[in-house]
């Protein structure tokens, strides 16, 4: 069962995705950050426990990027495994998000 958890650490919202990040997490992912908009100045999406992501997940991350403000790379994507990284690279997310590798 996939899940999303979020934790505000000072001014950084850390979102962790467990399992498969796909359309099933549509509401969970959107709800994870919506209450923190304006409260956090940085965002981290942690893929340490994410098995794989699909195009719907990429869309949800872009929607988040749009909502938090797109001027600078305020969202950092971290700990992606090879499969997740390939999906991020396919969509050229390195141009839109800060990535740790």
């Amino acid at each position, binding site marked *: 069962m996939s899940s999303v*958890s979020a*934790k505000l650490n000072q001014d950084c919202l850390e979102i*962790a995705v*467990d399992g498969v990040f*796909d*359309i*099933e997490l*549509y*509401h969970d992912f*959107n709800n994870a950050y919506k209450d923190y908009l304006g409260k956090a100045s940085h965002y981290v999406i942690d893929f*340490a*426990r994410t*098995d*794989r*992501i*699909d*195009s*719907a997940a*990429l*869309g*949800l991350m*872009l*929607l988040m990027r*749009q909502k938090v403000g797109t001027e600078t790379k305020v969202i950092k994507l971290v700990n992606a*495994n*090879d*499969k997740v990284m*390939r*999906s991020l690279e*396919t*969509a*050229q997310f390195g*141009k*839109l998000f800060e990535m740790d590798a």
Partner: protein
Amino acid sequence: MPSNQTRLLLVDDTPAALKLLGMMVASMGWEFETAVDGEDALNKIKAQAPGYYSVVVSDWLMPNLDGIGLLQALKRDAERRHIPVILQTALADKESVQQGLKEGAFYYLAKPLDMELVQSVIRSALRDFKSHQTLRSEITKITESFGTAKQATFEYKTLEEARGLSSLLASLCAEPDEVVVGLFELMVNAVEHGNLAITYDEKTKLINEGRFLEEVQQRLADQTYCDKFVTLNLAVHPEDIEVTIQDMGAGFDFEQYLTFSLERMLDNHGRGIMMANQSGFKKLEYSDGGRQVTCCIDRAAVRSALN
């Protein structure tokens, strides 16, 4: 096959603490092995088959790799993340407990250890592990039976059915995780844009407004769409599988979605077909005006060999 024998791994850098825990475990008749820190534990776990250890009971503060580090490393390992990890520590603050549980610890035991509590927590973790093993073995039996299929036809309507079916089909390949995303993308596309006729712009708007899944559900129930289904034909060959997905929609201009597009780079969707196209399939061809797509997948392929 995973071992059915109960075997615990006890981890602590203090020999006296390890000995005490060992006595508590031995008094219940459980077999155990020991490790002196997280790194030692991780090496031992990785050296064995995923089902070898039933439960890990680890101290929190240790040199080299601490209990949280060990827990995180196990949770990153898809084959071993189901092993319950019980953390024990004298760190009694709420933050530490929360961190342990957030990272996926099965339970948190406060030091000094209470023998009855230790035993009942381990018993519960063992139950958890065994039910997981049973489930896993049943799934293996089902997918093995499915492996005898040579040809099959499926009809599906919903995204949930597409998810389950894509996993089942992917199980015919050596590295299911490598092919499941591409298959799922094509199968979902046939539902959303094919049968349910959700246009590109409609989807953009629905996602922005947070109403996309509701709209999918509404259309699935709507009499205009409720009788439509996707037909998936499967042909299994020794070297590869061929999957043909046919929807009942109006077709679409598929060419523009096969590769990366700078103009659509910021759009909140529109990458599914591209992801499928770049997932290493031997063939991916649309026909019938976009209503039908056929893909051929090398059963043995692992991604590293494709790159």
